[in-house]
């Protein structure tokens, strides 16, 4: 119990450190168990220093920086214990264009040696352009959803459609 949690924490922490540096193009970060000596009781604190900035708790970062750090954490947990499917609902919303590209790069790297199938819900045209395929959800009839296959070139029309 306790030992498995500790091993698991170390694996998540290592992936988190690695993914943070990948997404932020530098800087340092680590996870910290707080409020208790017992790994089964402790809380999880996230310590980050983006490139060129001081080490601080997550709460001092910008909205987009916080989202990016949270993404690094989610992927670190995922990589520690991979699942056959991964679904991401609009996690790219607060990211600027350059960070959206890094987010997509990281997904491609993670997929590389896992059989996981990803479903990625997004409003972001950059993310859309980097998917292997696209489905559109429409409500031609009010209140009734339908699924349609979308041509990657038609992606921008899809997003505009009401």
């Amino acid at each position, binding site marked *: 119990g306790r030992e498995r949690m500790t091993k*698991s924490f170390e694996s998540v922490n290592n992936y988190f450190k690695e993914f943070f540096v990948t997404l932020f193009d530098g800087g340092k970060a680590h996870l910290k168990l707080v409020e208790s000596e017992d790994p089964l009781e402790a809380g999880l604190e996230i310590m980050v220093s983006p490139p060129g900035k001081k080490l601080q708790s997550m709460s001092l970062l910008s909205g987009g920086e916080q989202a990016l750090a949270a993404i690094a954490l989610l992927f670190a*947990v995922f990589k520690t214990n991979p699942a056959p*499917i991964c679904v991401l609902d609009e996690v790219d919303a607060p990211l600027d264009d350059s960070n959206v590209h890094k987010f997509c790069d990281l997904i491609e790297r993670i997929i590389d040696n896992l059989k996981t199938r*990803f479903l990625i819900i997004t409003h972001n045209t950059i993310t859309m352009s980097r998917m292997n*395929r696209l489905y559109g*959800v429409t409500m031609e009839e009010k209140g009734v959803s339908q699924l349609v296959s979308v041509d990657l070139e038609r992606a921008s029309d899809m997003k505009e459609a009401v």
Partner: protein
Amino acid sequence: MDFSRIRITGFKSFVDPTELKISQGTTGIVGPNGCGKSNIVESLKWVMGESSAKRIRGSEMDDVIFNGTDRRPSRNLAEVQLFLADNDGNDEVVVSRRIERELGSRYLINGKDVRARDLQLLFADENIGSQSTALVGQGKIGSIINSKPQERRSILEEAA
């Protein structure tokens, strides 16, 4: 086992039978606000045995049943089917959850009634479940950022 496709009928805004193929690599899902994208995510959690209506934006589980529009009457039945394939791509297992208004949920594996627990265990063997960190809902990033250290540790418990 690979997740091969999901079929949704009568679940929230997907009143008509809808099938989403889950292929290798990355599949993007796009569309305007309110068109049903997050409903797809929730149908997946639900068929994996989600036990809390609140976690899928309902006040009671009957809230997942299509509740009608100006032009269509509400329904009394919702069903989500998840098809799992073996390594050759054959649909070996069909997991199904159905809910009937005021009569609760039924769970089926390959057409045979099972308990919710059996269905949750099947997914646990595949290293996934309705509360898995791999299913990142629309508010999840915000809640990780805003949660206290004690609340955040649930993410770690997923990994262990």
